[in-house]
Every structure is written in structure tokens, then in C-alpha cells.
């Protein structure tokens, strides 16, 4: 059964087309990766699904659990079970880790907050009363973001580059957390530019220049990504920019 369907969605920001007739189906209970190089439009897709203010599609529809949510505001999408772990999480003056994690929890149980912190290898007694501000390192903040999503128990968790800013040794723990999300019934839409992260997915969609260009079993897509995708030539070779050279995929 599908939990998310994106039907021919286009998005333009500041005159630049970011998503072009993009379609995507995510099955309930799966880990579904969106794999692509930088600037492919992955984060924009995440913001569009979440319903962030500037990310309103000019055409196309978004369905969640069979209901059209294209016009549904951000907080209402969260209330029906969608959430986003932000790639660069915000910082808040005065808001403690405990407060922050608790915001999205339906049942405000301290035991669940502690469990969530343990999932990201942070010791609750050291972190619960710390403030989610610039006194936390980027890696700590990122772990707390993932803990907050875990504690919220959403139906769909969009994880935008969950491994970025986290040391390589912790990658296994992040992967374990993602698997645990699935185990607890959360569907995971995993946005990443690293094939080794997407390898835990049940299915992977390859994204490039605002399009899903290929989709299938993760091992096949990862193989294709390794062999065929290069860093975006529009960034590396600006002189080669032209209308036909669509970033990232070797034709």
C-alpha cells in the first residue's frame, strides 16, 4: 500500500525550475531513498512534501495516505504524521533538548525521550537540560534532530542527509536508527547523496536536475549511480553549460 504519491509536480523558485513534472510513489513501511548528487533538487523535494512556505508546486498533486494534501499547510501535514529531519537543523535560544524533543511527541513520556537519545548515542543525563543553541556542535545538533523525529513516531519521516555533519564512525548508528524507525512502523524517505547510506533502502529513486530519472532495487540504482553519475558538470565546467547538458548523468 502506498503512503505517499507525488503526481507530476513542478516547482519554480526565484525564476529557476527546481522540480520538473516529478512523480514518485512511496510504499508504506518501506525505506525509500532519493539518491542524487548535490543540487539535484532533493532537499527542495523534501520541503515540498513537508509543505514549507516557499515550496508550493505550481502544478501537480501530492497525496498522503490517499488524501490530497497539496494545499495542506505545514503544521497540518505534521499533525497527520509527516515530519522532516532537517539537513541543517535550526538552533533555539533557551529551548532545552528535552523541550525540543517533546514538542512533537503525542505522549510526553520522559522514558521515550531518553530512549530516543540513546538511539543516537547521547547520554540523556548529559543532554536533557542542555539548550538547543550554538553551544551544541553540528553533530550533536544533528543527532538531537534525529532523536526528535524518533520520539515523534511519525507515519512518514523525511530524513534530509541524516549522516551529514556526523562523524563516519557514527554512520552505523544512524543506519541502525533508520532501521528502528522502520521497525516501529514509520515509513522513511531517505534523502542522500551517499550511496552507502542508501544501501539500507528497500527501493531507491535516482534524482537528477529536478527529475526522478531512474527507480528500482537499491543495488541496481547504486551500481548505476556509481558508474554513470559524476559531480554536476554545470558546477565543474561552467563553460560547458547549455540547454542540453542536464547535470550529473552521463548520457
Amino acid at each position, binding site marked *: 500500500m502506498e503512503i505517499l504519491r507525488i503526481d507530476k509536480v513542478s516547482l519554480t523558485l526565484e525564476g529557476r525550475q527546481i522540480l520538473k513534472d516529478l512523480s514518485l510513489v512511496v510504499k508504506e513501511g518501506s525505506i525509500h531513498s532519493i539518491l542524487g548528487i548535490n543540487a539535484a533538487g532533493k532537499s527542495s523535494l523534501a520541503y515540498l512534501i513537508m509543505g514549507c512556505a516557499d515550496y508550493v508546486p505550481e502544478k501537480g498533486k501530492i497525496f498522503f495516505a490517499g488524501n490530497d494534501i497539496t494545499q495542506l499547510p505545514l503544521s497540518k501535514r*505534521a*499533525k497527520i504524521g509527516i515530519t522532516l529531519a532537517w539537513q541543517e537543523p535550526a538552533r533555539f*535560544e533557551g529551548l532545552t533538548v528535552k*523541550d525540543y524533543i517533546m*514538542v512533537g511527541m503525542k505522549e510526553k513520556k520522559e522514558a521515550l525521550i531518553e530512549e530516543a537519545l540513546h538511539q543516537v548515542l547521547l547520554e540523556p543525563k548529559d543532554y536533557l537540560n542542555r539548550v538547543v543553541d550554538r553551544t551544541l556542535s553540528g553533530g550533536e545538533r544533528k543527532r538531537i534532530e534525529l532523536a526528535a523525529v524518533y520520539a515523534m513516531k511519525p507515519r512518514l519521516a523525511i530524513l534530509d542527509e541524516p549522516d551529514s555533519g556526523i562523524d563516519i564512525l557514527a554512520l552505523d548508528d544512524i543506519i541502525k536508527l533508520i532501521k528502528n524507525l522502520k521497525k516501529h512502523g514509520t515509513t522513511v524517505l531517505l534523502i542522500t547523496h551517499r550511496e552507502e547510506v542508501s544501501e539500507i533502502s528497500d527501493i531507491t529513486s535516482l534524482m537528477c536536475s529536478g527529475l526522478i530519472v531512474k527507480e528500482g532495487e537499491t543495488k541496481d540504482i547504486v551500481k548505476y549511480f556509481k558508474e554513470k553519475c559524476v559531480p554536476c558538470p554545470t558546477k565543474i565546467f561552467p563553460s560547458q553549460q547549455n540547454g542540453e547538458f542536464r547535470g550529473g548523468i552521463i548520457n
Partner: protein
Amino acid sequence: MREDYEAMLKAYSEAGGTPDIFKNSNIAHLIIHKNKVIGKNLIKGLTIVPEETAWGIEINLKVEKGIKIENPVHLCFGVLTKEGIQEIKIKAKIEDNGGVKLLAHCIFPDAVKIVHKMDAEIEIGNDAYYEYKEVHYHGKIGGVEVIPQAKIKVGKNSHLLTNFSLLQGRVGVFDLNYETEILDNSSLNITTKIYGYGNDKIKIKEVGHLKGRNSRGLLKSRIVVKDEAESEIINELIATAPEARGHVDCVEIIQGNARAKAIPIVNVANEFAKVTHEAAIGRLDKKEIETLMSRGLDEEEAIDLIISKMLQ
């Protein structure tokens, strides 16, 4: 008198205070309604001499040499009528090796036209400390004019900490002016948090002069204004001694038609001193709001949470 006392305690409780502390003989306190002392308890090493004047009270406060007052001293100032003037003059002296923490509640729950002036001269000796937390509780009408002024001198190896908050009820008109001087190895930490709305007017001028070698200063302001409220914050740190270090940190959030002005002044006259500043005025960060909304809060709930935690 008894009725005023009971009414003050009730208002104090509504402002977030715990009236039971006034029954504890180990905790010093002073309760003043308009120009009358209606409650007082002193402890060893602390002298408080209040004298009634036509429009208020003059207070001489002294902490004796070598005495560090263990529990915070509670001061409660209020005017429970709709109109009135209350002028508080404080002369405080913390002798060498002495220390005190003061917790002041200023309560004007039904103010329509009240002027509350506070004029303080504070002298902190060497190896001493003075911590002053002031919490205001105003009513919903905004008919209060609050004018706190203080001149504070801090000796060597000492510290001064003030924490002013006006978060409950309307501000009315607020005009704060603090001047401080800090000597060798001493520190200054002034924090002011105010939430203004309606047509409230907030003006703050804080000046810290780091005169002593290795002195430290922090001036921190957190102001939120909405509706038609206005704020102007002048934070000035002057450093004239070697190894003096200071920082000015001012954040003002505006909503609606409010107006905010921040003027951080750093004034350094010694090549081995350093003062930094940061000031930000604007609406709340969109990403902070959207992050909380992505956890299920409505926009208004997200804004309220961010503001309340910032001002806490």
C-alpha cells in the same frame, strides 16, 4: 495595614512569587506598598534601614564585611491602587568580602496611571558580590511608567550580576538607565528581558566601564515588541584597562507594526583590551518556526514557544 499586606501577598503570588518565604525567619525581606513599609525581616550581617518619604521610601542597605548572605533577600515593591507614585531610593553598600543576592518583585496589577521610580547607588567592595534580580508584574492596561536608574561601582575581584525581566502584563513606559564601573579582576553581567505590546515604549541605556585590569563585562538584551510597541536599546561598553574583555549581545524581535532600534557602542582605549558586539533586529527566524511546525505546532504556537524560551 493588614489589608494592604494581605493584598500585596496575593498580588505577589499572582506574579509568580511564593508568599511562604515571608514566614521564614532565615530569609530577609522587605515589603513596601506605596511609601509604607508593611513587612520586614532582617538577618545577621544585613542592615536595611527604610525611611518613608512623601512619595516613596529611602532605603539604606548594608552587608557587613566578610558576611555572605546565604539566602536571597526578597524585596517586594508595589502599588495596588490604580493611580499613584512610588519613588524608591536605594543606597547599598556591600563591604569587602561580603555578598548578597536580592530578588525584587515590583507589582502594579491594576495600574492605570502609576509612576514607579527607582534610583540606586550601589557600592560593591573588594572580593564581594552583588546579584540583583528584578521581576515586574504589570496589569493589562499599560498605565505604568517605570524609571529605574542605577550607578554601581564594583571593587576588585568582585562581581555584579543584574537580571531584569518584564514579561507579564503591559510594559507601559519603561526608561532604564544603568551606569557601572568595574575594577581589576571583576565582572559585570547585565541581562534585560522585556516583552512589549500595544503602544508600550521601551528605552534602555546600559553603560559598563571596564576600568580595571582583567575586568569582564557582558551586556545582554532580549526584547520582543509587537503591535505598535517601540524599543530603543543603547548598550555601551567602555574598556580602558589592559586585558579588559567585554561583549554586547542584543536581540530584538519585532512583530506587526512594532519598531525597534539597537545601538551597541564599543569604546576601547587600551591596546590590550577587547570588546565585541552583536545586535540583531528582525522577525523571528523562519526556519525556527517551520522546524517547530514540522513537529505539529501551529504557527502561533511555534512563535509563542520560541519567544517564551528566549525570554525565560
